């Protein structure tokens, strides 16, 4: 039986919070004063004409949002909790086990990872009480659910000095979470195209519109894939047509993008999966929509012996035209170790830890000041021709393209569109 969140012990405070700050019927124009009533501010405009979950304003790279704190952060100067287990709620195999063990050894806890399939389903499990982790991974476009649902706790940055010290300025005070009230950044990446240079003959990077390669891939039927994420697939089809509002809620635009994607059934019998970091290096996929970290991870781990690094290609659109994102970590409301959870967030932003996690394990770049593309190439971490897989602070600026939270109706529109694409047509 589903344990409804309204039945949770803290439901009263949540309801009060919502009534004060963000009732579903509250007009957007009222959001600022209402959020102020929660002891918060919205420092810029409140989004692009709609409300996210709980009536929270929709953050966009050029529309910064500072989220209301639904409770006070923990006090400064407390000692970390020790003993027992410390649970990280995350994608499986997205954090180096060795580093988790070292953290556990340092603070006398056993660190365990509870995996989720995706962040949305993870948040639903958290809300249902099915899991009780200490910290979790979250993304900017799901952050509103975590805050409005009181699933994550406000942070006390006194415990997280590495944020100011080591992290790119764009993400110390990010547009989606002004003052870093709830999150710290974990990894960052851009979406582009990955391919096998020994199989694909086209000069993808030299094409007028490189996204067109998917619509010109008849010769590679069965070897072409897209990411299995509704925002990424539909967003890519929008960008191909020159529509840079990748958070649009215009049904006409979204439906046209879905219709364009459906053309790919007959063109290349397109597949959808998130295994491109493995299938492209191994050669079972030749052309795949991909995140920038995939080819770095693929180069490090999955390239078969005898296959040169030059067999991997990656393209992303220039600055301001490529979708970029970052993953974050937050402290869960269910934690019994709030101080230690803060210290974990500080730990993952440590230069050495973040770099080792990147280079020796997941291939996804942390937004560290000390990482720059040239150095990574010089050190042999990244092959020269994959230098464009490495992001810089400027890539995440106000003119960047980032998938943001949609209104409830917008999310339905995109999910139904993706469902239509996934249904596979009448082949």
């Amino acid at each position, binding site marked *: 039986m589903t344990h409804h*969140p*309204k039945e949770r012990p803290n439901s009263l405070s949540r309801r009060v919070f919502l009534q004060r700050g963000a009732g579903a019927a509250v007009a957007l124009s009222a959001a600022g004063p209402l959020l102020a009533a929660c002891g918060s501010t919205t420092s810029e405009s409140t989004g692009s004409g709609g409300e996210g*979950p709980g009536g929270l304003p929709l953050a966009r790279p050029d529309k910064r949002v500072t989220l209301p704190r639904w409770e006070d952060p923990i006090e400064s100067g407390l000692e970390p909790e020790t003993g027992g287990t410390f649970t990280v709620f995350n994608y499986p195999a997205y954090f180096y086990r060795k580093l988790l063990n070292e953290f556990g050894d340092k603070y006398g806890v056993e660190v365990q990872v509870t995996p989720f399939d995706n962040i949305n389903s993870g948040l*639903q499990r958290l809300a249902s009480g099915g899991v009780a982790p200490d910290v979790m991974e979250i993304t900017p476009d799901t952050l509103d*659910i975590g805050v409005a649902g009181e699933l994550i706790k406000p942070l006390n940055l006194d415990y997280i000095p590495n944020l100011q010290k080591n992290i790119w300025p764009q993400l110390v005070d990010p547009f989606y979470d002004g003052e870093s009230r709830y999150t710290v950044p974990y990894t960052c990446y851009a979406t582009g195209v990955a391919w096998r240079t020994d199989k694909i003959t086209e000069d993808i990077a030299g094409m007028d519109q490189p996204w067109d390669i998917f619509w010109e891939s008849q010769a590679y*039927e*069965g070897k072409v894939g897209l990411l299995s994420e509704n925002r990424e697939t539909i967003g890519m089809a929008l960008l191909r047509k020159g529509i840079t509002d990748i958070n649009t809620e215009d049904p006409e635009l979204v439906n046209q993008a879905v219709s364009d994607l459906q053309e790919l059934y007959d063109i290349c019998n397109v597949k959808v999966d998130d295994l491109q970091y493995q299938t492209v290096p191994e050669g079972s996929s030749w052309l795949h929509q991909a995140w920038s970290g995939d080819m770095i991870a693929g180069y490090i781990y999955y390239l078969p012996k005898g296959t040169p690094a030059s067999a991997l290609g990656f393209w992303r659109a220039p600055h301001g035209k490529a979708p970029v994102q970052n993953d974050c970590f937050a402290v869960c409301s269910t934690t019994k170790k709030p101080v230690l959870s803060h210290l974990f967030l500080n730990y993952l932003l440590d230069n050495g830890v973040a770099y080792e996690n990147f280079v020796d394990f997941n291939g996804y770049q942390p937004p560290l000041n000390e990482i720059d593309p040239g150095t990574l190439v010089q050190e042999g971490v990244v092959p020269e021709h994959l230098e464009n897989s490495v992001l810089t602070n400027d890539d995440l600026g106000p003119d960047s393209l980032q998938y943001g939270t949609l209104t409830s109706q917008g999310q*339905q529109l995109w999910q139904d569109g993706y469902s239509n694409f996934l249904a596979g047509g009448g082949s």
Partner: protein
Amino acid sequence: MYRRWLWPASALPGVLWLVLLFVVPFYAVLAVALGTVDPILFQPDPIWNPLEWNVGWLNEVLSRLAPGGIWFEVGVRTIVYVVIALALSLLIGYPVAYFTARHAGRWKGLILILIILPLWISYMMRMLAWVNLLQEDGWVNEFLMFTQVLSEPQDWLGGNHLTVILALVYGYIPFLILPLFAALDRIDRSHLEAARDLGASPWSAFRRVTLPLSKTGILGGAVLITLPMFGDYYTPNIVSGAPSTSMIGNQIDLYFHGGPQPTIGAALTIVLAAFLTILMLYYMRTIHRAQREAGTVGAL
């Protein structure tokens, strides 16, 4: 009095099991499908009172499944896959069950163990093993090229309908063979001998005696494998991954895996369950009729 309640009471554990693990969860799915969604967390907000049920999601699902709806093709594809997979399973499974029941002799036990053996390994692992075998440079292609069945490697994993159907057959066929074997093994050989004494050829005896008497086993096995096949989503995911080979279970998976409309997933589950209930009713009616006929024969 004590004896009057003793035997009915022995059914209590089974009834409790049915109520706790089927009736209650099914009612919960119904309450979700006909309920609402929490606007913040997108958690299903079940409505337990049938008088307050909201049929909007159910109507939405039915309209998507109707001709012209966005799920019509995937619904038809699912039915076609399952029907072909069932036919292939019967074509392969019946002779295996027949041989085991009639001709295996002292090897019967060993053959049954061999049929069950793959079930000791998880379904997922078995399918992943097939992914390796079906690679372009995998053993399947190597064998087919060695035997000159193929002149060049076939892309089995590139979104191939046949691969998905064969994977379904492979995954579920043991569940067909076992009830079939049980039904065939139960057939009294004197019926066959009587048919032969009356001049029936071996084929005629099979067609007019063995096949009708194994009908309950065929239907039982068919029900056992078609029910999970209809809801399957991981088989097409693992051996294909192409939308062109997706099944209706993939849509349920999509809507239950996050997003603002878990009720759509629940409503689709209900519609699928209703469809499968029709198959179940046919099976129960056939079983009932077979039992009645057997009773009549026994009385004679």
